[in-house]
């Protein structure tokens, strides 16, 4: 590997951070699309120079940008996201039916094998796909038309489909997570879906063990072991060893089981990372100390990672798409904060340094190991 490229989406533009394999010195370019919210940008595993970005504002709506040179130059591609057929309704905050309305693209997930194929998770929750490099987008309506969909309701951040996982061993299997409906799985490439939330417990909803209605914040998988999933829920860190059929809580000794991102070490499928955040109403690190927590046992037992991170007076948040790992050895770990810092560790989380300190609030972080 010759280097890494970190793709950062912020409230006011996109930034590209590049380094060699040592990950000590960084070149920062941007802002791209200055003034626009960049909810997410991600590169194609099949073509490292193909990068897609979700760009938007409340004023001018949704755009999708595409780069074919690793983020140096960009061109707008298709931005027409239209639900298939009559969209129907979901529940609104007051419990009344509310029409499905497209708001934005939260997450872009390129195919592992085809640079022109990308999935898009949108608000109001639905899954779209392009197979022509972003020129046109078509909904996979089987998810939104699931029999439970009329009972889905938005979380505080909107009813967003924010996580898309592709099983590398079964191309027809996908997982998605929706706030606040829960996790869903398809085994037929998106034609039909079913909720996979058994074992989740959410005391805040009328039926704490309901099939749908859980505020799942993020799910993660190691590609070598796609049947094992990890979840950061609104409260509770969870694990499934049977592709979502059942979940067990693995929060263990975390100082708070609330948080947003969760990710898996690139080479150790049982090493996972979370960022505990204090309760759902305060949204900052416990005790003002920014700590990642790492479990080397797939949950239950957690250690605080603090070396290089602020351990006093720190009140930033780390959002659900704002943590990533690279595939170098040792594995690099990266996360961005709502305070505009992007921290990097080139040794699996033992030591941290800020790559940049003063970006706009960070919405997403992705990383590529470059050939």
């Amino acid at each position: 590997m010759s280097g890494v490229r970190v793709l950062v989406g912020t409230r006011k533009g996109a930034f590209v951070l590049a380094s060699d394999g040592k990950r000590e010195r960084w070149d920062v370019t941007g802002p791209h699309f200055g003034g626009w919210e960049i909810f997410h940008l991600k590169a194609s595993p099949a073509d490292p120079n193909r990068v897609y970005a979700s760009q938007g504002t409340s004023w001018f709506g949704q755009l999708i940008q595409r780069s074919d040179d690793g983020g140096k130059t960009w061109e707008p591609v298709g931005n027409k996201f239209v639900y298939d057929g009559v969209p129907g309704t979901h529940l609104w905050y007051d419990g009344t039916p509310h029409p499905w309305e497209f708001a934005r693209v939260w997450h872009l997930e390129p195919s592992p094998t085809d640079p022109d194929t990308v999935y898009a998770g949108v608000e109001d929750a639905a899954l779209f796909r392009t197979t022509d490099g972003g020129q046109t987008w078509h909904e996979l309506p089987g998810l939104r038309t699931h029999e439970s969909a009329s009972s889905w309701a938005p979380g505080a951040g909107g009813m967003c489909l924010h996580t898309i996982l592709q099983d590398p061993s079964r191309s027809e299997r996908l997982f998605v997570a929706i706030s606040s409906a829960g996790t869903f799985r398809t085994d037929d490439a998106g034609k039909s879906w079913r909720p996979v939330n058994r074992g989740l417990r959410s005391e805040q909803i009328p039926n704490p063990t309901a099939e749908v209605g859980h505020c799942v914040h993020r799910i993660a998988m190691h590609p070598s072991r796609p049947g094992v999933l990890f979840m950061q829920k609104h409260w509770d860190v969870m694990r499934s060893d049977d592709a979502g059929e059942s979940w067990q809580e693995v929060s263990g000794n975390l100082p708070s089981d609330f948080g947003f991102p969760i990710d898996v070490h690139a080479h150790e499928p049982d090493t996972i990372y979370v960022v505990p955040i204090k309760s759902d109403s305060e949204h900052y690190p416990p005790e003002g100390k920014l700590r990642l927590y790492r479990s080397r046992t797939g949950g239950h037992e957690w250690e605080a990672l603090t070396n290089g991170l602020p351990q006093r007076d720190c009140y930033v948040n780390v959002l659900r798409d704002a943590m990533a790992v690279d595939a170098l050895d040792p594995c690099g770990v990266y996360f961005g904060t709502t305070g505009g810092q992007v921290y990097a560790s080139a040794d699996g989380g033992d030591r941290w340094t800020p790559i940049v300190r003063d970006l706009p609030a960070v919405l997403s972080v992705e990383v590529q190991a470059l050939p």
Partner: protein
Amino acid sequence: MIRVVLPAHLRKLAHVDGEVTLDVEGLVTQRSLLDALEARYPMLRGTIRDHVSQQRRPFVRFFACEQDVSHDAPDAPLPAAVATGDEPFLVVGAMAGG
């Protein structure tokens, strides 16, 4: 020739500096003007009005001859001074957010 002034973000998106000039066939209305604008700059589709409903986005306003014409019917004729090019048609990102 119709003159259109775009907000800064949309000028950048469309790779234009200053005013845009357009030829509009027939009656000059909001709809015919925006149709011509989007035909010439396809990247603007969806940014000023909704792809499907064709309704103006809530935080976008239209001005012409010092009048707010945002709520005028899309097929109503725009002022003659806009049709002749003496006055520009302004697409404005609304001031919002405090």
